[in-house]
Every structure is written in C-alpha cells, then in structure tokens.
C-alpha cells in the first residue's frame, strides 16, 4: 500500500514537472507574426510537397499573368537574441514592413519573427527553419555568423543574413549587414554640446562593444565640436535589458552634474523626467515620442537599403539563377547610403541649434565632414 502510494506520487510529480517544462519552453520560444495574414504555421512542420525549395514552384498555377516570371512570394523567418521591442531588432522589423508595403518585384512578403533565441541554439533553430522549406530568406538578426556558417551550404537556395559587430564573414549566400549610426549620433552630440549648462554629458550603455562605443564616441565628438569644454562619461550596465539599473545609472549621472543623458538602453528617460533641467537622447530608433518633454532627438537606424540589397540578390538568384555572391566582409550602410539619419528634432531645441545640426548634416552627406567611428573607450 505504502509502496504503491509512493509510486503514484512520484508519477504525479513527474507529470507535473514535464507539463511545467513544456509550458515553459513554449512560452520562451513563443513566435509571433508581425503580419496580419495567417502565417502562424509552426516552423517545424514538414510539408510533403516542400521538397524543392525553389520558390517558383509554390504558386505557379495561381498566377494568371503569363508574362509573370520568377517567384511571387518571399517568406522570411527572423530570429532574435532578445525581444522585438529592443531598437536593434525593432528598426529591422520596421524596415522589412516598409519593404512589404512597397512590394518590390510585385512580391508578397511575409515575416515570421522568433524571439529569445540564445546563441547556442542558433544553429539548431536556423537548421529547423531552413529544413522546413517554408522560407526563402532567414535573417539571424545578431551575432549568429557561426551558426549560419554551419548551415548555409546545406541550403544553397536560401538567402541567409546576420548583422552587427562581432561576426565573421561567410560569403556565398550568407550576407553580413550593418548600419552605422555614428554620424547622426555626432549630430545629436551637437545638440547636447550647445544646450548643456553644466558642460558635463553622460551616456548609459549596455556593454563596451564596438557597435555600442562607436556612436557614443561620435556623440561626444559632436558635442566637443561646438563646445570644447565638454566632460563626458559613460556607464555600462552590463546587460542588454535592465531598465531599473539603467534608470539608476542616469540618476547617478544627474547627481554627479550631467544634464545631457544619452540613453543607449531603455530606462534613463524615466530618471531624466524626474529631474529638472536635464534632457535625454534616444538611440537607434526614434524615441522622442516616448518622453516628448525631455527627449530631444537621437540617431535612428534605417535598415531599408541593407535589407533591399539582400532582396535584390535573392530575386536575381530565384528568377534568373544569378549565383549568390555575398562579399567576404561586412556590408555597412552609412548616413549617405540611407542607413541612418538623425531622428525627430524636438521643438525644445532652439532654432540656432537646429540650424547647426542641419549644416553639419549636409556637410556629412556631401563628404566635407568626416565623423570617425571610434570603437575605443569614451574619454
């Protein structure tokens, strides 16, 4: 009797645990579709007819136009290291959404976003997505070059994309994209340098990474270009997402005398809102609307040209058979390429400051003014 009881309890416990773990796993990998059309299919479903990955075969009879050449659909899967609201990811999704509306080559573009994929799981998830035959393009939107290097040759028809600093080039059908926002960060720095009262400006950032330090150094350089007395500091919170600590960092900077706070992460705006005479700058996406009473402006990333380059390469391959030929280096888009720009200029910014920004902006675009991409520590 006693023995049986123990077995039963154990079985129950095991069942509960299994349930818990399954539920947990589901929640963690929860995939979301950003497009209204019902693209909710699980990536792992292996469909019988999906043996050929050539997209041309999928919907051939549906098109009545005889002149229609090449594929009509581009299905994209995108994996993210974090959550889609993080500006690094959000700006890419935004660019893809714009391209969707523009319908290049008359394509119906769908996007399936899968969040919270750890580096270590990258290869497995990318392989699952590729082998499902559902996708013509897989965007691993962060430092996943190792995973793509391991997978891309097995799926020669798919265009693979990865992004940001810290990757290694793959070539062939593996595209390494990046957008540099240090030039608009320099412009935001001009605003900070002209508007600061204390001559002390600070940034709250994640980690001392190249893609983090580059814009921060440019922001400080921009401020110094108009105000040589600027003292600058940066606080690294050692996390990609910890708004409570980021807020405390900004509060400490304000207590130490800074009145211009660059928010490389979420959180500092809330500390700036609680202080008097202190202003904030957004990073990577246009964040003025988040706190219009304190957020002045900020550099904004635009992935459109980078993404469209890969769409063009895929189209050339899928419709004309032109082999993929991704360069063995990072494809970087600067402000002049449309890869970035200064965001909304808040009305709180005086006109002479706005004029100085406009002036510097046109000088950067014309090549008269060159802004260094300095990955070193912020001095």
């Amino acid at each position, binding site marked *: 009797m006693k023995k049986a009881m123990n077995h039963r309890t154990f079985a129950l416990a095991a069942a509960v645990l299994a349930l818990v773990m399954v539920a947990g*796993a589901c*929640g*963690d990998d929860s995939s979301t579709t950003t497009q209204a059309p019902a693209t909710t299919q699980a990536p792992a479903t292996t469909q019988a007819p999906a043996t050929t990955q050539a997209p041309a075969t999928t919907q051939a009879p549906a098109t009545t136009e005889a002149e229609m050449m090449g594929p009509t659909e581009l299905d994209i899967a995108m994996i993210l290291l974090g959550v889609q609201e993080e500006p690094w990811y959000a700006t890419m999704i*935004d660019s893809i959404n714009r391209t969707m509306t523009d319908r290049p080559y008359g394509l119906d573009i769908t996007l399936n976003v899968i969040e919270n994929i750890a580096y270590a799981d990258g290869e497995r998830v990318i392989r699952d997505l590729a082998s499902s035959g559902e996708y013509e393009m897989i965007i691993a939107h962060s430092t996943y070059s190792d995973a793509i290097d391991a997978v891309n040759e097995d799926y020669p028809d798919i265009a693979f994309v990865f992004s940001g600093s810290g990757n290694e080039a793959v070539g062939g059908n593996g595209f390494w994209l990046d957008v540099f926002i240090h030039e608009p960060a320099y412009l935001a720095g001009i605003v900070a340098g002209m508007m600061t009262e204390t001559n002390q400006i600070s940034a709250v950032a994640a980690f001392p990474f190249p893609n983090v330090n580059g814009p921060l150094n440019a922001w400080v350089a921009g401020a110094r270009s108009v105000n040589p007395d600027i003292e600058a500091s940066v606080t690294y919170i050692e996390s990609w997402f910890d708004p*409570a600590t980021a807020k405390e*960092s900004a509060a400490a900077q304000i207590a130490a005398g800074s009145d211009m706070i660059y928010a490389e992460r979420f959180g500092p705006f809330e500390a700036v809102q609680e202080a008097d005479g202190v202003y904030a700058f957004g990073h990577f996406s246009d964040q003025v609307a*988040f706190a219009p009473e304190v957020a002045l402006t900020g550099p904004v990333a635009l992935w459109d040209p980078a993404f469209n380059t890969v769409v063009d390469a895929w189209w050339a391959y899928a419709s004309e058979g032109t082999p993929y030929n991704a360069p063995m280096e990072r494809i970087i888009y600067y402000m002049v390429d449309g890869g970035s720009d200064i965001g909304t200029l808040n009305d709180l910014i005086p006109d002479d400051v706005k004029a100085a920004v406009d002036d510097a902006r046109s000088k950067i675009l014309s090549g008269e003014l060159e802004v260094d991409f300095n990955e070193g*520590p912020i001095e």
Partner: protein
Amino acid sequence: MGEILTHLLTPAVIIGILAGAVRIATPLLLAALGEMVSENSGILNLSIEGTMTLGAFAGFMAMSWYENLWMGLLMAVVSGMLFSLIMALMTVTVKVNQVVAGLALNILGIGFAFFWFRSSFQDRSSLDVPTVPTFDTADIPGLSRIPVVGEVLFSQHWLTYFAFLMVPMVWILLNKTRYGLELRSIGHNPEACDMRGINIVPRQYAAVVFGGAMAGLGGVFLSLASTGMFFPDIAAGRGWIALAIVIFGNWRASWILWGSLFFGLIDALQLSLQAKGLSLPFFGDDYQVFLALPFVFTIVALVLNRSRSRSPLSLAIPYHRGER
C-alpha cells in the same frame, strides 16, 4: 584616488548614492525577506526570479487594464501567491525535489509572463514600446524635510517603506510568536513537530505563499515604481541575488536588511563612480569588479558563519511521515 574622494564627498553625490542604494535594495529586500520565511519552514524556493517576473508582469498588465496602480500592486501579490502555491503543492504535498521544482518554475514563470505579454500586446509596431504610468515617490510629511536623511529615507516609494516595515514584522513573526517558533522548528526537525501534533502542511504552505507574495511585490517594484515597462528579463537576476542575500543574512531578518542595503550600496557606488568617469585604483575602468563583489562577500559570509549558521537543518529535504 584623490579625485574619487572629492567626488564621494560632494553632498549631492552622497545623497544620490545613499538614496540609490535604498531604491536598488527595495526589490531585493522584499524578495529576500519572503524567501527567508519560506526557507525557515524548510522549503527552498528557487523560483524567486520567475515569481518576480510574473509579479512585474501581473502588475503591469493590471495597470494597463484598470489604470489603477494599487490594483497593479494587488495583482502582483495575488499572482505571486498563486504561483508559489504551485511550488508549495509540488514540494509540500507531492514532495518532489525542491531544487528541480524551483528551477522548472522559473522557466514557467518567465515563459508564461512573456507568452501572455505577447498575446496581450499584438497588432502594434515593434517600435512602439508599451509603457504604463508609475507610482510617484511619496514624501513623508515633516520627515522628508530633514537634510540628507529625509532625502535618503523619507522621499521614497510606498513599496520601499513597506519593505522596511516588513523587517521588524517578519522578525516578530518568526521570533516572538508561537507560530513563528513552530515554523522554525518545522524547518529544523519536521518529524519532532509532527510528533508534537503540529500540523506541518498548512504552515509550510503559508510560508511558501508568503514568500511568493513578497517576491511578487519585489517584481512589481520594477514594473510600476522604478520603470513603467515590462519585458521577460526585467528581473535581471535579482531573484538570484535575493537568494544570495538570504545566505549572506544567515536567515535573520535584520541581517537581510543590512545585506540588501549593502548590495544596493555597492551597486549605487559603482554607478556613481562610472557616472563621473573616474578610474578605480588597481582596477582602472574595470567596473565589473563591483558586480562580482556582493557574491564574493556572500561566499565570505558563508565561510565565516559556518559554525554559527542558522540555515534550517531540514532545508530542501522533503518530509515523509514515518520514514527516515
């Protein structure tokens, strides 16, 4: 070194560091106090991180529904209690391995909160980050005007006052009431308590559920007081730090208060030094050393207390009546 001292002796900086330490300590103190009660009854609840995340989410969600901060607070407490009820069910009734159950519940809590968050905030651009209004700080009349002390201690959030108030309450509960004595006895020797006719199960349930409520409050401090945001990694390891503080505090309420403040102070100090761009002696710009310091001190405390440890003897050991 001289520069650092000059910086640290500036009044605004001192107030900033101390007030920051109290704010940073609040969620840690809430979660650690609750966990301490749970562990005193013999149940090691490792799911604090998940419970905090869920509490942060429930408060955020309730706020966006009812636009009432107190409703958010209430929902955070309720969600923490319900979630830890699962922990109590698994460990007290079903008697599974407490470590495994706690780790699994962490995954469940964070995953569930994220899942619900996503399904609630669909059909919007990723660029549009959902936010809610937050609690204002509540100045205590009169006391908040005292120089330095007023700004540091009496110009904080309601949840901070509550957290500090809970320190003596928990101490009285555990050390000055019969119920508390019984609870601690269960943590040390459940068999003896069982023989004395003390009903173990409801007491352990109550302790674990109390811990869940406190962790929920710790979580909601992040999403409704500190910032008005929610994301699945909002707890950012604070649940694990709370577990370390229980060890650091040697399972005593007063030491847990000092432990939380100490962890908060170290963090506030390093943020302030970074804010001024000062280089550390020996470590230069490697501020990461401060992130490791609390854990180094926890290990030191563990070693120093080894002969005086107040760790419950039956911690994490399921009690089966009539078995040895």
